[in-house]
């Protein structure tokens, strides 16, 4: 964020995004902009449409109507649903990242941790083994995986380690936008805290823009600048994260916030 409030362009512009599965509504008329370095949390319960929205935004799903415009590295604005498959796949493995809830969906479980991190480098043409390995080691360090695990397969890793490896694999090409689907789901509470803290540090340090789907309001509070609350496929409340959590307006948001267990 610069001093000047107006001179910077967003990275992503979502216009009227709607997805129907046949007659059933996935998400309806979603509009927002995302700026570089900004973390947006999408919260809501199962079936609220948040995963449909995430999959549409990341071009995994094609929406029924609406556009998602992305500012490419060459500063051209492109509707991601109109990219050729080659362009889309290149975007996905260079300028974007996708952190799945289940690390097995985002990792190659039968190749070593080092190769998991190095794959995206090789995919963009790095042909120097020494450099690939050095970069992989550096990233393993940043996600707190011991260097001596570099040649082990993620099959032998704990859930938290796998998730951290998945994050390293995604960030190695210096993406500008990362999608995360319940990144701490399925992990023990203590492991969650470590992962969240790590993500928070990396996102801040790298100036990443991120869209995080979560049903955990603590995750939203810790990671995001801004949040959107979804219910029945629609965004019912949006704003600064601490504003939405501390002064919720909508009945459903008030219910969500008041349902948090206090410790």
């Amino acid at each position, binding site marked *: 964020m610069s001093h000047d409030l107006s001179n910077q362009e967003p990275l992503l512009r979502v216009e009227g995004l709607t997805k129907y599965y046949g007659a059933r509504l996935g998400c309806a008329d979603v509009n927002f902009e995302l700026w570089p370095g900004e973390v947006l949390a999408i919260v809501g319960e199962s079936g609220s449409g948040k995963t449909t929205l995430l999959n549409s935004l990341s071009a995994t799903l094609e929406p029924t109507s609406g556009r998602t415009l992305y500012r490419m590295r060459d500063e051209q604005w492109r509707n991601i649903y109109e990219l050729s498959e080659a362009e889309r*796949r290149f975007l996905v493995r260079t300028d974007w990242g996708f952190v799945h809830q289940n690390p097995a969906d985002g990792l190659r479980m039968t190749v*070593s941790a*080092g190769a998991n991190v*190095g794959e995206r480098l*090789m995919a*963009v043409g790095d*042909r120097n*083994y020494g450099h690939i*390995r050095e970069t992989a080691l550096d990233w393993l360090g940043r996600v707190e995986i011991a260097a001596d695990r570099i*040649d082990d397969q993620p099959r032998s890793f704990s859930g938290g380690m796998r998730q951290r490896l998945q994050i390293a694999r995604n960030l190695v090409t210096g993406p500008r936008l990362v999608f995360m689907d319940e990144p701490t789901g399925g992990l023990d509470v203590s492991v969650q805290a470590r992962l969240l803290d790590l993500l928070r540090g990396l996102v801040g340090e790298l100036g990443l823009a991120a869209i995080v789907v979560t049903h955990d309001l603590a995750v939203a509070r810790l990671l995001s600048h801004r949040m959107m609350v979804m219910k029945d496929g629609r965004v019912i409340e949006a704003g600064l994260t601490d504003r939405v959590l501390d002064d919720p307006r909508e009945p459903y948001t008030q219910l969500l916030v008041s349902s948090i267990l206090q410790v």
Partner: protein
Amino acid sequence: MNAVASYNFAYLDEQTKRMIRRAILKAIAIPGYQVPFSSREMPMPYGWGTGGVQVTASIIGPDDVLKVIDQGADDTTNAVSIRAFFAKVAQVATTTHTADATIIQTRHRIPEKALGEGQILVYQVPIPEPLRFLEPRETETRKMHALEEYGLMHVKLYEDIARHGRIATTYAYPVKVEGRYVMDPSPTPKFDNPKMHMSAALQLFGAGREHRIYAVPPWTEVVSLDFEDHPFEIQHFEEPCALCGAEQVYLDEVILNDRGGHMYVCSDTDNCEERREAGHVGSLGVKEAAE
């Protein structure tokens, strides 16, 4: 023709041969690209070279001279059987001499003697998809070929170096054809990879079980994948062939006794015999003239 009157020339019916030839032509037009074809049941089990046999059957004519090798040898069961098969169903002349053959069907080797224009090398291929090892989904691998997404191929080489300190893949070593498609050269030793590059001969690959045909036309660039700091290199042998004294050829280890005695001999039997006839002798060889 009496003995085999019930068979069409070269066993396959003409419609099938035409279908396979069309696949071959497409494969030649797109070097390294795997063309699907409708593989037929052959009178031999899968794994015995049904893909290569169908390709050979589709291109062979009465004037052709056929050589068949298995791991470089003309005299192993598989080679002898296939040679006998075509001698019977196509009544073509057969040979063991590389230079005399117009079609050479091979399992797992490329002859040592450089092939010339007009010769065709037919490879028997078990698994045509080089990406299969890391990506089992055929829909995905086809997309990767289409979009030239070959980073994954280097993941395998990376794993090799990470585990063994060097690229330990010694056969079925992936190549890039004419700067476009990554191709599995079938389980030939990587020793043979350089022979594929700018070869004067037409190289055809048939995978019967997998229903795929691909090709490298004559004078085509074939480059083995590698890393800048771990360049591709072929195997080197410490000693020459014990029979003919040849160096810079691919050698098989032969165990001589149960006390650890062994020798290295040419894998290409025809090349070895020709050399011995020309008077070359290895450490355990016997001078032909002295017999």
